């Protein structure tokens, strides 16, 4: 089986963000400011587990600028076999419509992919729709919010998964190839081994293929800003919270409870 995963480099979850002239910048005093999108680690882990069970290989795909290699590095370090960076100046400013077009083209170029796995959402744009848009572009079975891959029948060409949706836990089955987006509940991502990290560093330096628009045989009117429909007018920090925290200090829990309930009734939230 050939499994692909799509992963994106994003700011760390503890990054401190700033907006200047409509541009978002970030830093992280506590560590690396750029990481593999945390949701994508679950996609990587699930792909590696499926490979361990069924054989085959895992290829990681990331679209982003030349220097955005964190996601692929993590993917290789965790155990993916190959990685591709899809990168082109012309891909700048892509919304999910354009991103899904490029990722679908990259998956098509890989050629023999049976299953592509995505994270639930990227913690920068927070859209959570790229996966199903790629599924639609490829005409593959769309399986979102997956919390368990129950069965992959490569021979019969089907996949059975459990999805966590509002109505409950839904078990569904569909033909391969399929596109999955996975939730955190699905697994516990492994930590890369020391050897894995060394391998990843080497891979990034020597063997990482970089595919541009021409390599994908992509229609340039469908990528980047030209292929996007969503336009950003403004991005801004939330105004700081007004008012201080009112600390309730009373002699007993009972008295504190009575005082709090008074306040909540006053606020009309009860």
């Amino acid at each position: 089986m050939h499994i692909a995963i799509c992963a994106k480099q994003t700011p760390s979850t503890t990054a401190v963000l700033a907006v200047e002239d409509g541009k978002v910048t970030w830093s992280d005093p506590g560590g690396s400011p750029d990481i593999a999108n945390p949701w994508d680690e679950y996609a990587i882990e699930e792909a590696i587990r499926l490979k361990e069970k069924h054989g085959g290989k895992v290829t990681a795909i990331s679209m982003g600028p030349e220097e955005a290699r964190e996601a692929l590095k993590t993917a290789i370090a965790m155990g993916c076999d190959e990685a591709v960076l899809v990168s082109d100046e012309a891909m700048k400013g892509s919304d999910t419509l354009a991103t899904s077009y490029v990722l679908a083209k990259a998956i098509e170029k890989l050629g023999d992919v049976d299953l592509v796995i995505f994270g639930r959402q990227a913690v920068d744009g927070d859209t959570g729709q790229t996966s199903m848009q790629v599924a639609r572009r490829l005409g593959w079975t769309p399986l979102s919010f997956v919390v368990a891959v129950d069965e992959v029948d490569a021979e019969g060409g089907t996949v059975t998964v459990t999805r966590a949706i509002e109505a409950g836990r839904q078990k569904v089955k569909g033909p391969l190839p399929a596109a999955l987006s996975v939730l955190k509940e699905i697994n516990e991502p492994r930590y890369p081994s020391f050897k894995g990290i060394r391998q990843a560093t080497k891979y990034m330096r020597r063997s990482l293929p970089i595919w541009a628009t021409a390599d994908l045989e992509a229609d340039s009117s469908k990528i980047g800003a030209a292929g996007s429909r969503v336009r950003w007018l403004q991005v801004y920090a939330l105004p700081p919270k007004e008012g201080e925290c009112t600390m309730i200090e009373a002699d007993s829990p009972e008295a504190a409870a009575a005082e709090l309930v008074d306040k909540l009734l006053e606020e009309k939230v009860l």
Partner: protein
Amino acid sequence: MSGIWVWVELSDGKAAPVSVEALGAGRALADELGTELSALVFGQGVEEAAEAAIHHGADQVYACDDATLADCRSEPHAALVSQLAAEHEPIAILAGATASGRDVLALAAVDLEAGLIPDCTGLAVEDGAIRATRPVYAGKLMSNVYADGDTMLASLRSRAFPAPEADAARSGEVINIQPAMAAGDISVEVLGLEASAGEVSLADAGIIVSGGRGVAGPEGFEPVRKLASTLGAALGASRAAVDAGWIPYARQVGQTGKTVSPDLYVAAGISGAIQHLAGMRTSKVIVAINKDPEAPIFKLAQYGIVADLFKMVPALTAELKKRL
């Protein structure tokens, strides 16, 4: 191009709360743009829901009653949305940002080569065009965006828009239509559903009571659960409590869990890590109960009590039982 559309999600034959909110938001846009509001009500046994959509503000309803549309599969819904939209070219199609709502719009956006704006918390008309406000970077920043091209698609976050009152005097037309896909053409087959019985959904909850590592074990959630049920609230949790296996992941609030926006959020034994705050900072009133006066949660909370949750939470439950 004319008309604002709302794809209405049905659960047990009734519109999901966020779909009713979307009808309200759609009505406001339609009025401002001087156009009509249409509801798309697809499922099995849709007659009542179609009527209710009119009471909630729709001028007309496209109703499709078919077994293939009954079980939350995005393909047949999306195909029908795309087919209708290609024919009638609405200005915008709205849906609630639920699992199904997101998926239906994602698939339809590709079919229509349309801009899709997810998780909107605000919609406005400026110079005749629709502008959306939505949180980005895990809610640390806000953005104002719009979509160019023809039809724009947007999903709306639960509880971000007021739910309109039903007005039984409103009337409108119900147009019955046929499904766009035959049963055999749908790739996904549903094998079963384990329903989440009677639990208040976090996204729709008006009040949420959450426990964190401070509850110290699965049995530690008991007082928290009692407080939640006294308040008719949904039960939430921090990741630390979920990772410890004390409570299922479905209850996790935060950056890698659910984003919620209740009127009241009670955090018991939760320190207030940035990833937790990302999921609940837009709550109207936040109450923090923590034994550490330096816990960061007190910076965001309106009301704070420095106390042992095992004493404070039962006291609060008892007080509420007396007063409510």
